[in-house]
């Protein structure tokens, strides 16, 4: 009876030791894997921090809005067939204006005139003409031309579409 009891206890102890050893091995392997994952996560976090810092600096580097004003110094009407512009809204958030999304709205610039470009729909402003970056497609003499620039370029006055 005692021999059987000893064997039972011994068997239970061996089984428990085997289970604990297997669990230890699995957890050790998992720990090794986690150390590797932790290194990757830390490296990724450092990289993301750098990018985030750079993105913050870049946003401060963007020039301020300027109104897009065009001048037609020529003697013919010029059509601005497409406009895209990026500007900061009242909350400082960057917005994108695309005239194609507004039924390909076109602007007619009469000869010898200047005009601040903007777009309103039923009394509400879609784009007030502000821009950090703009791109204008004009038709002149049957040719399409793209005029592009930044708000820095608008400090010098209107965008000359055609000269005399």
């Amino acid at each position: 009876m005692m021999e059987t009891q000893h064997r039972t206890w011994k068997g239970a102890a061996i089984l428990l030791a085997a289970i604990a050893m297997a669990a230890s091995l699995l957890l050790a392997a998992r720990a090794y894997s986690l150390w590797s994952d932790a290194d990757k996560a830390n490296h990724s976090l450092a990289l993301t921090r750098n990018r985030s810092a750079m993105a913050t600096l870049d946003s401060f580097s963007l020039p301020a809005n300027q109104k897009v004003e065009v001048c037609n110094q020529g003697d013919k009407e010029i059509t601005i067939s497409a406009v895209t512009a990026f500007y900061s809204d009242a909350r400082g958030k960057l917005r994108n204006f695309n005239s194609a999304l507004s039924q390909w709205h076109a602007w007619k610039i009469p000869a010898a005139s200047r005009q601040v470009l903007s777009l309103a729909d039923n009394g509400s402003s879609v784009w007030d003409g502000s821009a950090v970056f703009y791109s204008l497609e004009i038709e002149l003499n049957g040719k399409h031309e793209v005029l592009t620039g930044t708000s820095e370029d608008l400090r010098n006055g209107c965008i000359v579409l055609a000269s005399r």
Partner: protein
Amino acid sequence: MQTESQRTSEDKLIQSRLFNLSHGLNIRPGKRSLTMEMGFPWLSTLADLAPWTGCAELIAIDSLVDGERPVLLLDDFEGITLTSYLERQTIGTPEALALLERLAVAMDHLHAGNRVHGALRASSILIGEGMALRVVDWMVDWNQVPLPLLAEAAESLSPERLAGVVAGPRADQFSLGLLAHQLLVGRHPFPGVSLAERLFRLRFGLLDEGIFGETGFAMQAVFERVFSVDAEQRFDSCSAFVNELEKSPPQRSYADTRLLDVEDPQLQWSELSADPRGPSDSVEAGKSAPIAWWVMAAIFSVVAFVLGIANWRMQGRIDQANDLAEQLSASAAGGFQNGQFQFCNAAPEALDIRELAVAYWDANHQLRTFSSTAYTQNGWAIAPASSQFLSWPVGRKTVWDGSVVFYSLRVEQGRKEFLLSGHWNGNERGCLHLPS
């Protein structure tokens, strides 16, 4: 230790030749009875044996066949000799005393008729089913057999017989004492390394002193009396001797102390003796081994627990770092770093980028612009299922290297025209596709 095959052959031998003393006495099984060939001149007629046939423990004689070598036909009795019986199993003290009691009755029965066995020994006794016993050679007057012919029975003879004196009934009591000692103590009371030494000690009553601690005072006294060299000092009868033995049980049962290679399913001696470390070592090892395993299990459990905790904390830190990186990545996505302009055409037909205007950071971190129409009216043609990095080299000089922060382009695909504009996320690589 005897093997099974050895025992089987021995059983056959025992049944066919209970003993062969090389002097013409043979007992072998017949069809219905045992037969004994009589080579002795001192037993001639069945009538001489008639007075002693009433005892159940003395094997019955069916008939005597006269002839040149007279044959005794004995009552059929299936059994093995007590010698063989003791080699394969132990007999407990109660059973041994019962056996001795019946032998004592048989001997006293012989003595009552003025007959003496003269050479009572284990091989004279057959043990059958239910511990039935028969003394098979009681009809032989062993006192008349010359000593040189009694080599097999020499260690069972009384001192007076060894001294050449005619042995009386108390000689059988001495032989019964030898049997009793064998059954209760487990060994011969007159041990020796040689037969000569054993017979010398037996002749002069030099008892084994080692039995004193095993039998106790009372039984020791009984054995000392029955083994007296002077026959007059022994008990009055065999039954009186056995009665005294029953009143003085041994301190320890012989069956409990005997260390022999015998099969006893209750004690499982074979299992214990199979362990080379011995029974006591086995018990110690059995006690210590589980403790070692439990200690090992405990150590591994602690290690597993610590590792589990460490892993859990490590996983928490990794999740925290990943969450933070995800938040920062979202804010960084709104940044304005240069990307590399790449256009992908997944459509089955080619497309033309007619006009392209981009803004990008130059080396001095100044925002610059590039307009394709300042250089060409043709733009870029993107083949079906292909992609292209856009840039504008002029000779060895690169006017625009493909960097982009803001873009605006006009694309023609078949009859469709698209005006695409957007903010290139410099943190991500990828293609600009036409909207589906």
